[in-house]
C-alpha cells in the first residue's frame, strides 16, 4: 500500500514526472536554440522560471469566474499526472494497469486541452476567447488521427492496455515495422496536441498574444506551464511505449532505454518546431483531415488484415 503510494507520488510517478518535465523543457529549449544558432538557456532555467512565477502576484480578471479560473491549472496538471500512472517507465509494467487503460490515458490527455479551452473562455478577454476557439478547432483536427494512430497497434497486440501492448511488442519487435505510418501520424498529431510550431495557432503570440493563457499570471500560470511540460513528457512516453517498445528485461537498463527513447522523440519534436512556420488554423485542419486521418484509417485496415492473415 505504502509502496504503491510512494510509486505514484515519488517515482516513477508525479515527482519524477515534474522533474523530467522541467528537464524536457530545458532540452527542448536548448536544442531549439542551438538549431537557431543561439546559445540557449542554462539547465536550471525552466526551474528558475517556475520558481519565479510561483513568487509572482496572481491576478484574476474581474470578469472571470474565480473558482473555475483557479481550479483549471490544477485539474490540467492532475489529469496529466493521472495518465502517467498507466505508462511503463521503470521496468516492464506501469504503476497500475488494466484492460482498456489506453482509452483512459487518451481521455486523460484530452483534459488539459479542454482545461486550456475553458481557461481561455472564462478569462473573458478577446484574445483568450479567440485562442480558446482555436484550441477547440485544432482539437477536433488532431484528436481523431491521434486516437486512431494509437489504437491501430492495439489491434495487433490484441490488448487495450499500454503495459500489455509494450509487453507484446517487446516480444515481437518486428511487428513495429507495420506500425511505422501510425508512428509518424502520432508524432505529428502529438505536436498538434502539444500546440507547438507548426500547430501553435492557439497561442500564436504575433496574432493573439498568448491565446487562452493571456490573462494567467503568477502561480496559476506556473501550474499551467508545468502541466504543459508534463504533457510533453507524457506524449513522448506514450509514443515510445507503443511504437518503440524495445526492452532488455533488466529494470535499470530499461529505464535508461526509456530515457533514451523519450529524448529521441523530443528531439524529433524540437526539430519539427525549429524548421517550420506556423500554419493557419484552417490549414492545420485541412492537413489533419486530408493527410493524417486517411493514413491512420489505412493503418487500421492494414492492421486488421495483418491480424486476420496471421491468424493472431
Amino acid at each position, binding site marked *: 500500500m505504502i509502496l504503491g503510494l510512494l510509486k505514484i507520488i515519488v517515482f516513477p510517478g508525479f515527482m519524477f514526472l515534474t522533474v523530467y518535465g522541467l528537464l524536457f523543457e530545458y532540452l527542448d529549449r536548448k536544442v531549439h536554440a542551438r538549431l537557431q544558432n543561439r546559445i540557449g538557456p542554462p539547465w536550471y532555467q525552466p526551474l528558475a522560471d517556475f520558481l519565479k512565477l510561483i513568487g509572482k502576484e496572481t491576478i484574476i480578471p474581474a470578469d472571470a469566474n474565480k473558482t473555475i479560473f483557479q481550479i483549471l491549472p490544477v485539474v490540467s496538471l492532475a489529469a496529466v499526472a493521472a495518465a502517467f500512472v498507466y505508462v511503463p517507465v521503470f521496468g516492464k509494467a506501469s504503476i497500475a494497469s488494466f484492460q482498456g487503460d489506453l482509452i483512459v490515458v487518451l481521455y486523460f490527455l484530452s483534459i488539459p486541452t479542454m482545461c486550456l479551452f475553458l481557461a481561455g473562455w472564462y478569462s473573458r478577454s478577446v484574445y483568450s476567447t479567440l485562442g480558446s476557439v482555436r484550441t477547440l478547432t485544432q482539437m477536433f483536427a488532431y484528436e481523431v488521427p491521434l486516437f486512431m494512430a494509437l489504437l491501430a497497434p492495439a489491434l495487433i497486440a490484441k490488448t487495450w492496455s499500454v503495459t500489455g501492448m509494450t509487453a507484446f511488442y517487446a516480444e515481437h519487435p518486428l511487428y513495429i515495422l507495420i506500425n511505422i505510418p501510425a508512428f509518424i501520424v502520432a508524432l505529428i498529431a502529438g505536436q498538434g496536441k502539444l500546440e507547438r510550431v507548426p500547430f501553435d495557432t492557439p497561442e500564436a503570440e504575433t*496574432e493573439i498574444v498568448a491565446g487562452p493563457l493571456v490573462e494567467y499570471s503568477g502561480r496559476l500560470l506556473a501550474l499551467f506551464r508545468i502541466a504543459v511540460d508534463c504533457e510533453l513528457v507524457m506524449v513522448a512516453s506514450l509514443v515510445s511505449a507503443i511504437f518503440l517498445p524495445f526492452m532488455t528485461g533488466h529494470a535499470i537498463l530499461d529505464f535508461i532505454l526509456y530515457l533514451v527513447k523519450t529524448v529521441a522523440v523530443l528531439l524529433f519534436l524540437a526539430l519539427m518546431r525549429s524548421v517550420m512556420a506556423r500554419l493557419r488554423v484552417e490549414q492545420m485542419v485541412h492537413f489533419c483531415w486530408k493527410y493524417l486521418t486517411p493514413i491512420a484509417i489505412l493503418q487500421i485496415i492494414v492492421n486488421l488484415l495483418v491480424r486476420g492473415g496471421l491468424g493472431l
Partner: protein
Amino acid sequence: MSEYNRVVIPIGPQHPSLKEPGCFTVTLDGEKIVDVVVGIGYNHRGLEKACESRNYIQIIYLLERICGICSHTHTTAFCQGVEELAGISIPRRAAYIRVIVAEIERLHSHLLWLGVAAHEIGFDTMFMYAWRDREAVLDILAAVGGNRVNYGINTIGGVRRDIDDSLRQDILKMTDALQEQVKYYQELALTETTLAARLAGIGKLSGEDALKYGAVGPVIRASGIDFDIRAVDPYAVYAEIPFKVITDTHADVFGRTVVRILELLESIEIIRFCIKNMPDGDIVTKAPRRIPAGEVISRTEAPRGEDIHYIRSNGTERPDRVRVRAPSEANWHAMRHMLLGQYLADAPITIAAIDPCFSCTDRAIVINSGRETELMDWPRLRQYSIDWYKKRGIDVASIKIPERRMYF
C-alpha cells in the same frame, strides 16, 4: 452572419507583433476580417515644427533620428535638397560613399525585415538566422560611421567620413559571405512549403490598386510596377551604376519577400561596383550657412520605398518649412484594402509586409524637456549600465560571454 457573431480585436498599440505603436482595430467574423480601422500617430512628436527653429546643420542630425533603420536615406534626401537649393555639387567620392552607405543600409533593413516577417508567421529559426547575418552588416556600419544606427555620414556638401582601403576590404568580405546566405534564403523562400503556404496569396494588391493607393518601394514593385527612384529620378551616382530594378508579379506577401531577397543580391552588386569604381578626391565641399531662398522636392529610394523631402528656404540660416514624406507613410493607405477578407492569422504578416516604420510615418524625435542633458562617451555609457545593474544586485561584468563567433 449576423452582427452578433462579430468580435472586435485591437491589434495594438501594444502588441507582440508590432515593434512600434500602431493600432489596428480589426472586426472579425469568425477568423475572417470584415473591417479594419488603421490608427497611427502614436509616435508624433513634432519634428517638422522643431526643424523650423534649427539651422540646417542641426536639422541633419534631427532628421537622422526620424527612423532608426533608414536614417541615412533621410539625411541624404535632405542634404541633396539643400545642396540643390544652394547650387553646390558634391565631390564624386562623396556621392559614391553616400551610395555605398545607402546600400549597406538597405541590406540591414531588408535583413531585419526578413527576420521580422519570419517571426510574424512563427518561423523563429529564420528570424534568428536573418538577424545573425544582419549583425555582420551592422558591424560594417559601425565601422563606417561609428554607430550601429544613425551613422552621421551625411553633411551638406558631402560626407563626413571617408571609406579607406582596409574598410573597403572588410565590406567586400562581408558582402561575399552575405551573398551566400542570401542565396540560401532565396532558395528557402522558394521551396519551403509551410513558408509558401503562409505567404502566397496573402495581402493581395494588384498593380492598379498599388498605383491608386500610392504604394511605394518593394510593395509596388511586387505588384509588377518597376517604380524605383534610383532608376526613375537618379540621384547621387545611381545614373552611372548598372543595376536591375527588381519586380515580381505575385502581388502578395510572397512577392514582396522575393523582391526584398533579390534586392539584397542587387544591393550587394551595387556595393561591389561602387567600391571598385570609387574615385579619389575630397569628400566634402564648403557649403554656405545661409541657404538661398527657394523650394525643392528631393527624392531618394529608401529601403522601404520612395522618400520625399519638401524643403523651403527663406534665405536665412533656418528653413521655412521641411516636410518629410517617409515611405511607410505612403504604404499605409493600401493597408485596409489588403487586410479586408483575410484571416486574422494573416494580419500580422500583411502589416509587416509593407515593412512599416511607425516612427517614419509620424516623424518623431524624443526631446527631453526640463532635464539637463549631457554627453556620454561609449566607455562611460557602458560603465553606467554596468553600475545600474550592480545597484540592483546583478553583476553583468561577471557574465562570461563566449567569444563571438564571426560567421563571416
